[in-house]
């Protein structure tokens, strides 16, 4: 297992009223789940906790998460990831999907 915590600077995300979390993906082979939670304490940071079944790819994780935090306004968000061997493009896709779920009006 690879487990780590890391914060990335990001522009503040304005969470729609009433929405506190959003989930994308499932923990399955080549897949991952991403949970977005509101974290009002650090509006200019994306706080990440990653658990992956595949060790040895921390650099790829950091690059993917850093890109995401730079490309989208996701400050004030706590991101928790449970991964079972997803490749970086799937990781980016799930992050984007979770962000979409946050921003979408109805559940």
């Amino acid at each position, binding site marked *: *297992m690879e487990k780590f915590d890391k914060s990335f600077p990001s522009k503040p995300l304005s969470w729609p009223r009433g929405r*506190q*979390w959003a*989930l994308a993906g*499932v*923990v*399955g*082979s080549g*897949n991952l*789940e991403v*949970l977005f*939670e509101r974290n009002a304490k650090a509006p200019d940071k994306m706080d990440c906790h990653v*658990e*992956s*079944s595949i060790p040895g790819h921390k650099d790829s994780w950091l690059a993917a998460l850093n890109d995401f935090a730079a490309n989208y306004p996701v400050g004030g968000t706590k991101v*928790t990831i*449970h*991964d*079972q061997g997803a490749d970086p493009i799937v990781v980016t896709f799930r992050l984007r999907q979770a962000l979409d779920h946050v921003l979408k009006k*109805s*559940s």
Partner: protein
Amino acid sequence: MTSAPLFHEQTARQRISSLADADTFTEFLPPPERVMSPYLPQLDIPVSFDDGLVIGRAKIGGKPVYLAAQVGQFVGGSVGEVHGAKLTGLIQAAARDGIPCVFIVESGGVRLHEGSSGEIAISEAMRAVFECRAKRVPTIAVIGSDIGAFGGMGILTTCCDFRIITEHGRLGISGPIVIEKWMGKEAYDSSNRALVWKTSGGKTKFLLGDADLLAEDDAPSVAAAITKLLSKSNPLTLRSLKARQLELEKRMKDFGKTGDPDAIWTALGIKDVAEASLATAPEFIALAKKK
């Protein structure tokens, strides 16, 4: 053909949101609560926020239900201690409140990594199902994916009042690979998909009467089937058990030595097996009626 997404391709959460009336689903123990397996991390296996089971309250066709959906991709939809405790709690709530309980089953059974805790969890869930049945609270299992309902979940599914199955669903105790390992490839070839589906698949289970309704592979058809059953119950009495036993004995007598599943379809009234194999659910039901 409908334009709705295929039910067997949807995830547990997508199935719930496409079955429940809009904005009626309230999840119990949602992901931020992090009620997760304490055992999987010890084995270096990733955990999931919902432990592979999404539970909650919803309305289907305007009627309140307790709803559970298993996540087949997560450790085979298997029932671990937390997964089983969530399931049991939901069924007990259904019995207490007199609200029907609907299970979207997608599981190979007990989570072997969790040993006895998983076994006990599934037994507790079964006991809760019988609590519902004693109180005439409907319990409905939906099997709509090829992971299907096997092992302990196969048993739990058959403990329910009713079963809804789609062509993609499978129902059994030992899965095809397990049977092949024990009996040999000559007895049962698990790579023969036609054979596997003709023995444990939705159409066969519907023909045999092991499933009560056969639905098309989309959420609107499944929801319509659920709605039909919500106000019914299937009382469990000594008489109904004895009748079922006789039915199973007759099945053993009629088909126990049959090696060809097509012969079973024919004996059960399907004239053109090739046509029936390709038929949609409503077409198949019509063909099965023309005995």
